[in-house]
């Protein structure tokens, strides 16, 4: 329980809580980038450099930008709407109950201090070369499947988001 962990945890929790609690959707996504950066800092602190930088590139760089674009494209300036559901109290109660259940389970699991996990081992030194080696040898089949999934998802996303009227007008222009 070091100061670094506490600071990173505070940044993460503050950023994500603001992302889910602010009223303006664009402010929510800006707070979300802070939360994602905090999680990336935790990965770096845990010694998983590659995952930390992947987190920054994928979440801060891609997912948050994509969400900002989606919010701007679906923005209706004329009609300000209540951002929270009518039943938000129930949602908050359910989330709090889930957290208390998980926290109690974690607490009970660490009750005997002689557990094998109670003694932290030396920080493992994992280089990017080792990760690439594992991806190309032991995990090559999952890697190929993920590549196929990403290709299918991106083509599907473009087809779903394409406006059918634009498609027709482009065909007219081609003729």
């Amino acid at each position, binding site marked *: 329980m070091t100061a670094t*962990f506490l600071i990173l*945890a505070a940044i993460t929790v503050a950023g994500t809580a603001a992302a889910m609690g602010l009223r303006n959707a664009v402010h929510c996504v800006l707070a979300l980038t802070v939360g994602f950066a905090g*999680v990336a800092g935790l990965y770096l602190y845990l010694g998983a450099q*590659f*995952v930390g930088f992947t987190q920054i590139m994928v979440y801060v760089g891609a997912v948050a930008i994509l969400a900002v674009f989606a919010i701007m494209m*679906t923005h209706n300036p004329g009609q300000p709407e209540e951002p929270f*559901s009518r039943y938000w109290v129930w949602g*908050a109660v359910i989330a709090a109950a889930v957290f208390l259940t998980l926290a109690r389970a974690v607490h009970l699991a660490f009750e005997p201090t002689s557990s094998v*996990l109670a003694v932290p081992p030396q920080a493992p030194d994992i280089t990017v070369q080792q990760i690439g080696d*594992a991806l190309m040898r032991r995990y090559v089949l999952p890697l190929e499947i993920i590549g196929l999934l990403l290709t299918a998802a991106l083509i599907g996303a473009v087809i779903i988001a394409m406006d059918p009227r634009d498609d027709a007008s482009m065909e007219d222009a081609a003729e």
Partner: protein
Amino acid sequence: MTPLEGYLLLSALLFAIGLAGALTRRNAILVLIGIELMLNAANLNFIAFWRYGPHPEAMTGVMFAIFSIAVAAAEAAVGLALILAAYRHLRTTNLDRMNRLKG
């Protein structure tokens, strides 16, 4: 409190924040972001167990987190495309007003 316990509690809190957002927000994009936060909580657990587990040199947790991030990216792209397509028909991203299946 051991370091692993701290990470597990933080991850549980992150999951609860994401769940609260997914359950209470009206904007479909922010509900999707809440789901992303829950996925992030799971990833944090993978990395914490890898770091403090008995065999960190096997890199299982790191690999699982990398693949999980890739799947989450695909999910975000398809989810946002679906929200845009729904917005084109209904002119809203308010989930309370998306109450019919026919376009």
